Every structure is written in structure tokens, then in C-alpha cells.
């Protein structure tokens, strides 16, 4: 499934969830399902600065593809980053770098967020592309 198709799938899932409560339960569920990172991996260089909650992001190369893992002390934040991980994990650096991640604006989740957290979402997307760029160049 392409990045665009995965994004479309998420938007379809959300379309069945009209209320804020269901949408948040969906995000919280995604946060719970995303495996926790080990404390060893949660070093300060993996921390995304500028988020009110702590967010760690790790990326490694595997057969020319980028494998992401992420964690947060906030389960809602972790659910949000899980959306990105689901879309970008296992893709090639080139596909990640050229991906249009504006689907997050269509999820209807962003307008419920405090500006700091909405900004954190942009930071996460930027950071994931940055790591893909580093892996692609290595």
C-alpha cells in the first residue's frame, strides 16, 4: 500500500467516527497499540524539542527502508505520532521525503489541539522526514 493509500485508509476509518469522543478514543487506542520504546533508546538526542509532552523518535535503516519507532509520555500525543508511523514506517527514504502529509489536516483532529500540540504535529512530520533524509544520504 502506498503512503497516499495508507493516509486514505486512516481518513476512511475516521469518517466512521463522527464525535470528538470516538475520535479521541481512536487516537488513544493507536497510542496504546504503538509499542513502547526501550528506555535505552529514549536518549536525549531522540527527544523532539518543542513539544509540551515528551516525544521520542527513532529511525533506523532496514534493507533500504526506514523503520520508525516513537514514544511519548502523553498517550494522545503518542496516538498522533502513531498515525505518522503507520503511514511512513517501512517506506523508502525517497517516498518519505516526497510524501504529502497534509492528510493530518483532514483528520479533524488538529483543530481540537492546543496550538502548541498542533505545532508539535508539524514538528513530528518534519523530524521524520529529516531522519529519512539522513538515512537516505548515509
Amino acid at each position, binding site marked *: 500500500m502506498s503512503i497516499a493509500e495508507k493516509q486514505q485508509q486512516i481518513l476512511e476509518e475516521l469518517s466512521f467516527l463522527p464525535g470528538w469522543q470516538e475520535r479521541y478514543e481512536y487516537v488513544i487506542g493507536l497510542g496504546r497499540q504503538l509499542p513502547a520504546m526501550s528506555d535505552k533508546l529514549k536518549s536525549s538526542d531522540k527527544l523532539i524539542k518543542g513539544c509540551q509532552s515528551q516525544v521520542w523518535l527513532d529511525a533506523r535503516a532496514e534493507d533500504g527502508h526506514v523503520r520508525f519507532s516513537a514514544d511519548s*509520555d*502523553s498517550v*494522545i500525543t503518542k496516538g498522533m505520532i502513531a498515525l505518522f508511523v503507520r503511514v511512513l514506517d517501512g517506506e523508502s527514504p525517497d517516498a518519505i521525503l516526497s510524501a504529502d502529509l497534509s492528510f493530518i489536516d483532514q483528520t479533524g483532529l488538529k483543530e481540537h489541539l492546543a496550538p502548541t*500540540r498542533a505545532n508539535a504535529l508539524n514538528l513530528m512530520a518534519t523530524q521524520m522526514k529529516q531522519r529519512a533524509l539522513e538515512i537516505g544520504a548515509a
Partner: protein
Amino acid sequence: MAFDPSKVRSDFPILAQAVNGKPLVYLDNAATTQKPLAVLDASRRYYEEINANIHRGTHHLARAATAAHEAARDRVARHLNASESAEVIFTSGATDSINLVAAILTLVPGDEVLVSALEHHSNIVPWQMLCERSGASLKVIPCHEDGTLDQDAFRALLSERTRLTAFTWISNAFGTVNPVREMCAAAKAAGSLVLVDAAQAIPHVRIDVRELDADFLVFSGHKVYAPTGIGVLWGRRSVLDALPPWRGGGEMIKEVTFERSTYNVLPFKYEAGTPNIEGAIALAAALDYIEGIGLEAIAAHEQHLIRRAAEGLSALTDLRLFGPDDRVGALSFGIHGVHHYDLGTLIDQMGVAVRTGHHCCQPLMARFGVTGTTRASFALYNTEAEVDTLIAAVEKALVMLR
């Protein structure tokens, strides 16, 4: 002395709105309070009827604006029971007031500034900057597990090196009420100047600067139903007269030549530039408004609400309340295994506005081993029903998060 909050609520147009389809429950009053019509009217009337620059104009409007601005100063002085209105200096807020005092003090290496563990960053950083500039050192009064200050440690820290002691009257993060009179007396006995941060105290308690016997007291108008951008530095005349001016410019001068300038007397010595005239007038209107209801009646009502909230929340599993039982204004809590940001995000969806995070008290949060708390803070217009909505919203959020 109880009053009916449902009647005063109609004085606050902003409270009538819905958020996410639910009635707004505004419990972030320690951050800023909403403004009653009496205050909004005072601001508007100033611009509609008497707007002019003050002190120097010879025309009718300038005289009217000057009179209103100085009457506002008198009103603040009366509220604080200051010896004279000239001890009331208008600033842009509590932070500005503290920075003013930090800017005019001269310290030398070996001098000490004493602050408390409960302080807001605004009552830490200006002193840190002063210490960096002067080579003085910053000492911290520690706090107990219940969020009260360690008074024995405080007295042990006081010495002839202590040049300034700065502490808050009421903690913005925990609602702790410090024994300010005793602390002022102890600091003064050690020969220290004393600054009291009354930013959180001003809407909740009666302040009498003569009885308090501090040297400086600061607050922001917006915490007491007045607009943002206006605040007060009350300073003892004998202290301020001996200190140099700070910002240079209009109103703070007596005479200017290119060779040298001479400076105006209090309070104008510290009010360079055109002040926030409308803000000062609106602040006076806000003080009239709370006195019209009765500060004691307001305090009793808020105490009732905060106790009800503490009792209701205490019943929830794994809930930790911060601060002592006799907290005032703010109720801070945390729930084991739940991030405060998640809780705040979900109860916002239910129309409940609280503050989450470190409350500009990062050292205090570190002391308690948390990155932040959820804080509900109360004002005169809050109701029992809103407290119950808060508790129900927290319960519902916990069901979603657990």
C-alpha cells in the same frame, strides 16, 4: 455573607458562550480572570469621553484624563491601605514590577537574594539576572511535601548578607498561602528588603501594606478582573526615594538639558512614557466592582468551591492533590499514569477550561518529581454546578484514558 454567583455571572458576557457545544466552564482564573461589564464600560467610557495624554496638557480633556488616572492611583492606594498614593506606581503587570525593582537595586559579590521554592518564574528570573549582573548569589527557601514553605530553613537562610527577600503571598501552582506577615518581619529583622508577589493574592485576600510591612508589593490588574497590560508596584517611599530611576523619558524627568537631567518625584520617577491610562482607570473600576460585592464574601464563596472540588476529586482513584488543605485560589492535581496534557485536552472537549503544565514553576515541579499538573482555579463567578461539571469531566476523561 454568601452571594448568588448566578446573579454576578450576568456581569461577565464572555461566560455565556458554549465551547465545543457545551457551556463554558472557566476554571483558569489564576492565569487570567474574565472582565465584568463595569470594567469594560470604564475602558470604553475613557476612550469615548476623556481620552487625552495626561499631566502636561492644558486643555479640558487632558485635565479630565489626568484626574481620572490619578483618581485610579488613589483607588489602588486605598485598596492596599498605602500611606500615600505616590507609593503606587503603575506598571504593565507583576512581572514588569519585579523587573523594575531588580533593575534599580545595586548588589555586590557576597550579597544574597532569597526567593522561595514556590515562586513563579517571574519572581525568580529577574533576580537571577540581577545576581549574574552583580555577582550576588540566589538562595532558595525549600518547601515541605505539602507545598508549604520550610519556615525553619527560611530563618536559617536569613543573614546579614541577605539584601532582598522575595516571595509570593499565594502560590499560583498550588494555592499555598504563605505566612507573609511573619516572613516579612523575619526578613526585615535580618536587615533585608522584602518584596511580596501578590499576583495571586489580589483577587482573594485583603491586602494592607502598612500591616504587612514589606518594602515592595506587586500585582497584575488582569488577575483581579481588570485588563491585561496594567499592574502595580507598591513601594515604601523611604526605600524608593533612595533608589535611582530606571527607564528614562517623558514624565519621569523634572528638567532636561544635554548636560544633565534631573528626575521627577514619586510616583512619576518610575513612570517614563505615556502610561496605560485606560488600564489604570479600568483597574480602579475592577477594585470598585469586587468591593461592591465584598472581598470577604467572594473569598468565602471561592473557599467553598475549592473545598468541594478537592473533596470530589479526592474520591478518584490514584489522584494526588498538591498543596496544603487550606489552599486558596488554585487546586493542582495529578493522576497516576495519566499525562496532565491528555486530561486537559479531553476536558477541554467537554467545555472545561483548566491549565495544564508547569504553571511557569519548573523548579517547583522538579521538586515534586512531576513535569506538570492539572490546575483548576476559581473566581467569584464560578458555581457549585461548574465544580461538579469539572469532576464529572475528569471522571469521563479517565475512563477514556485508562
